[in-house]
Structures are given as structure tokens and as C-alpha cells.
């Protein structure tokens, strides 16, 4: 795992609660709002299960800590999107909170419904970008959620030991977290 320069992290009183909201203007219309919300709820919950940080969705986009939206091309943050595939999404380090997804991608919540060959799993990308929002940079571990690339029609949502060790070094461990909840292969490779 790796961090951004200076190892920035959210600095709030414990128990830490971060709010998130979806842009009312920059969204996609072919996935239902309920599906999108469910995907992000699960993605945030994965990180929440390993660190003492809770995430709550709020309606007020402008006051939320984490602002989520879909954008196309140049959208004013100096990091233009490039159409189908290429760059899928980006997010900013703490405590910026912006999480942007490329509106040109064929986002999928279920590959049985989204038949496109270039469909991209929303939950995998959301989980990865939340890692950036929290302060993790890209990992060299191919199986880690924080590895930078993701093939179309591929799902990679489970945090691996590299992700967990990285984020827990920043925020500490969730008292209810158990290593046994991770992949057995991860645990054995870590032991070795």
C-alpha cells in the first residue's frame, strides 16, 4: 500500500462520521437512484468495517464531506475524462472529498443486465475511489482494491490485506474487525 505525499487523512473527533451526497446535476439516468445508492452504501460499509469511521448519506450535496458525481470530458478540475474506457474515475486526497466518475462509461451494477463488452463495475470503482478519498494511493499488489487498473466486466470489491493494513495504519482498526473476515489466501500469505 502507499499514501499520498504527507499522508493526509481526515482529522475529525472520534467517533468519526463522514457524510456523502450525490450531485443533483451530474448523474447518470440508466441506473436507478436506488441501485446507485445501494452500491455506494456497500462500498462505504466495506471500509467502515475495518476502520472506526462511519459514513452517512445526506441530501445536502454542498455541505457533504464527500461529493459524488458523473462528469464527461473537461469538467473543470484539471483532470478531463477521455470517453469510453481509458480513465474510469478519479478522486481527491483528504480532506477534499470529491469523487468523480466518467459519465461516458457503461456503468454496471449487474453484468446480467448490462450486456456491453465495455461495461465497468460501479461497485469496484466506487470502493477503489473511496480508498483515495480516505488517503490511500495506488498499490503495487495486483489483487488489492487500490491497484490502479480494472478490466471491463470485472468485479473487484473485497478489501485485501494490503488495503486493510494501509487504511488501518491511517485510522486505526475498527474494534469489531476480525482478520478472519479476509480471504484465507491473504491471511496465509501475510503470515508467511
Amino acid at each position, binding site marked *: *500500500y*502507499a*499514501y*499520498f*505525499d504527507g*499522508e493526509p487523512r481526515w482529522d475529525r473527533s472520534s467517533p468519526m462520521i463522514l457524510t456523502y451526497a450525490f450531485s443533483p446535476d451530474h448523474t447518470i439516468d440508466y441506473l436507478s437512484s436506488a441501485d446507485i445508492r445501494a452500491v455506494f452504501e456497500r462500498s462505504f460499509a466495506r471500509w467502515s468495517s475495518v476502520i472506526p469511521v462511519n459514513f452517512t448519506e445526506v441530501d445536502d450535496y454542498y455541505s457533504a464531506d464527500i461529493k459524488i458525481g458523473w462528469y464527461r470530458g473537461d469538467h473543470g478540475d484539471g*483532470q478531463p*475524462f*477521455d*470517453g*469510453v*474506457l*481509458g*480513465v*474510469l*474515475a*478519479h*478522486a481527491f486526497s483528504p480532506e477534499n472529498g470529491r469523487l468523480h466518475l466518467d459519465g461516458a462509461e457503461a456503468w454496471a451494477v449487474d453484468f446480467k443486465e448490462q450486456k456491453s*463488452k*465495455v461495461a*465497468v463495475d460501479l461497485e469496484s*470503482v466506487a470502493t*477503489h*475511489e473511496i480508498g*483515495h478519498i480516505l488517503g490511500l*494511493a*495506488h498499490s*503495487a*499488489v*495486483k489483487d488489492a482494491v487500490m*491497484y*490502479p*487498473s*480494472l*478490466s*471491463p466486466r470485472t468485479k473487484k470489491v473485497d478489501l485485501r490485506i494490503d488495503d486493510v493494513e*494501509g487504511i488501518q*495504519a491511517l485510522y486505526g482498526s475498527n474494534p469489531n474487525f476480525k482478520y478472519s473476515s479476509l480471504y484465507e489466501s491473504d491471511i496465509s500469505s501475510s503470515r508467511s
Partner: protein
Amino acid sequence: RKLLDPSTELTADVRTNSNATWHSFMRFLDAEKGSQLRGMSELKKYFQRFGYLSIPNQNLTDSFDEDLESAVLQYQKNLGLPATGRLDSDTMKEITSPRCGVSDKKTRTAQKLHAKIH
């Protein structure tokens, strides 16, 4: 008879994983320091974008120079690929894959502490 390009097999493999822009980089497969290939400056822009090259745009040439070799090596190291310094098939497959737009630059890999019992 049309001759097959040496990159054909790999090209087919990554076709569904790459977009048009990055897919065109497949023509640089197996290039190494000293190679001179038209359009190499576009690949340099890719490395520039993701934090591996800091050469100004106007100075980007089509030659596989020392700076590019060092960028390729750093890229391979950062992404857990074999460090060959060449645009080998593993490296090209990764370069043409869709990815997160966050730069790989300005990251610090955590060093694990090693304790000794005295």
C-alpha cells in the same frame, strides 16, 4: 499474403480491455531504449499524465530515450511488474488497461518496521 504483425496475438487479447487511444500504443510492443518509433511522444504523454515523466510537452520526442526507460522501470516497479525497462507484453497489457485517473506520482510506499530481538 498479408503478414501478421508480431503484436497481433496480444492485441487480440487486450482489445476488449483498452480504449482506442491507448490501444494504439500496442505498436510499441517490445520497444526498448534506442528505439525510434513514430508516435512514441504520445506514450510519453501517458507516462507524464500518471506521474512518471516530468518533461515539458514541447520536449517530448519519438525516441525511446533514457528518461522513458527510467519511467518504464518506475512504472513496472510501482505496479508489481517484472522490471525490464522494455515495453514487454505484461507492461503493454497494463498500459492499455482502463484505470483510475489518479496519478501514481507523489505516493510514498509504506515501509514496514523490522524489529530485532537483542
